[in-house]
């Protein structure tokens, strides 16, 4: 599901088209939309500025509005329900498009399909790691799992490797870190604390 080439249409990962709104032009057939994609490539996540909103999977689509073909619609999806950065992201998108002479655009927020850390591209995962944030490991917490404690004698098996020294000998300090999407860990070898981008 990782969108790796941003100029391609991405039916698999993109939001569902709104029923009854007719055919939307394929992204790559429209130079204007391609320019918008290119401009938005430079919009970083406000809390993790080393990755773009496209790389994090927040930017879902760029299209022409069904009701006003001259109007560009930028489709984004929130990460966590209460993510306080969504307002900032909308502002940043508008600023970037303004600066490029592509405004005005309409920003549409969609909930389905729900954002997932699976959409974070491998390149972005590597950028996160170099920035000191361990990228999400594949395994999301299972659905109903009555007991999944960090008990004294049974450390959970899914410890993320330290982004600084690569050691897998790490431990969780707190399940909730500096932002909603991260947990706080510590490396038991190099002793550095680090953020872990939680699977979602």
């Amino acid at each position, binding site marked *: 599901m990782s969108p790796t080439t941003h100029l391609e249409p991405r039916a698999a990962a993109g939001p569902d088209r709104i029923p009854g709104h007719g055919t939307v032009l394929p992204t790559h057939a429209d130079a204007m939309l391609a320019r918008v994609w290119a401009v938005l490539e430079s919009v970083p996540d406000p809390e993790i500025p080393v990755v773009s909103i496209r790389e994090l999977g927040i930017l879902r689509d760029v299209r022409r509005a069904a009701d006003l073909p001259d109007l560009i619609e930028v489709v984004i999806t*929130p990460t*966590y*329900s*209460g*993510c*306080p950065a969504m307002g900032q992201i909308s502002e940043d998108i508008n600023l970037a498009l303004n600066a490029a002479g592509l405004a005005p655009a309409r920003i549409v927020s969609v*909930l*389905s*399909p*729900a*954002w*997932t850390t699976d959409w974070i591209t491998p390149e972005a995962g590597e950028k996160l790691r170099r920035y000191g944030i361990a990228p999400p490991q594949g395994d*999301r*917490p299972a*659905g*109903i799992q*009555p*007991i*999944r*404690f*960090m*008990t004294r004698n049974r450390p959970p098996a899914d410890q993320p490797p330290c982004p600084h020294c690569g050691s897998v000998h790490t431990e969780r*300090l*707190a*399940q*909730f*870190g*500096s*932002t*909603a999407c991260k947990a*706080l860990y510590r490396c038991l070898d190099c002793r550095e604390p680090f953020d872990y981008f*939680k699977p*979602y």
Partner: protein
Amino acid sequence: MTQQHLAYVLRLADNALILGQRNSEWCGHGPALEEDIALANISLDLIGQSRLLYSHAAALETALTGQTLTEDDYAYWRAERQFSNYTLVELPHYGPLAGTAHAAKDYAVTIVRNFLYATLMAHLWPVLEQSSDSHLAAIAAKSAKENLYHMHHAQDWLVRLGDGTDVSHRRAQAALDYLLPYTNEFFSADALEDAVAASGIGPRGADLKAAWLADITAGVDEAGLKLPTTGNYTTTGKLGIHSEHMGYLLAELQSVARQYPGAQW
């Protein structure tokens, strides 16, 4: 589109908002920095869920009545009797072993409540992902993921407290004895839940009880605690009849919006 459909979405929203508001009282007062941040993050998720649900309710209400409402109208401009959250989520953080002063918050009460509520939602959100209301299903899909982290946080701490020191064990047991009777309300029969179940919008609370109880029993066992009996009394928050604590909570929640109507920030 029915009045019951709207009322059901508001019930979900009210639970998320009121628990989010309650838990946010720990912001700046957590027992440790990590827990301060954890409770603030959990509150942020809950209030975020309530915003999505209130916005959805506003759309439903517009379709029903033609009135144009926003999420803020529900959060800030309704009176106590119009809120339909479970009584459990509005209770203060001080438990039976603490003083009654507002400052005497007991983390065991906070953790046990989050454990009871998040475990319920771990069963409810996945059912709502199949709701005949596709927008509600989309909100449920996001909320289910967040809720698992809330549940695991509460479970971790339940074990640490229950299987910790004598004092922490005693407080955790007292919190459980105090709060478990309030969960009768999760499962009490109700015309509204019958109506939404009939139209495929959501389940009856009673449908979730067996699975919830199995998880609660396992968690309580792991923590070395005893599951108390719940008694026969059923609270009525979901019907709009609240405890004496609700008015104070709303007064704090709504005061700024009511002092400065229409303010933008």
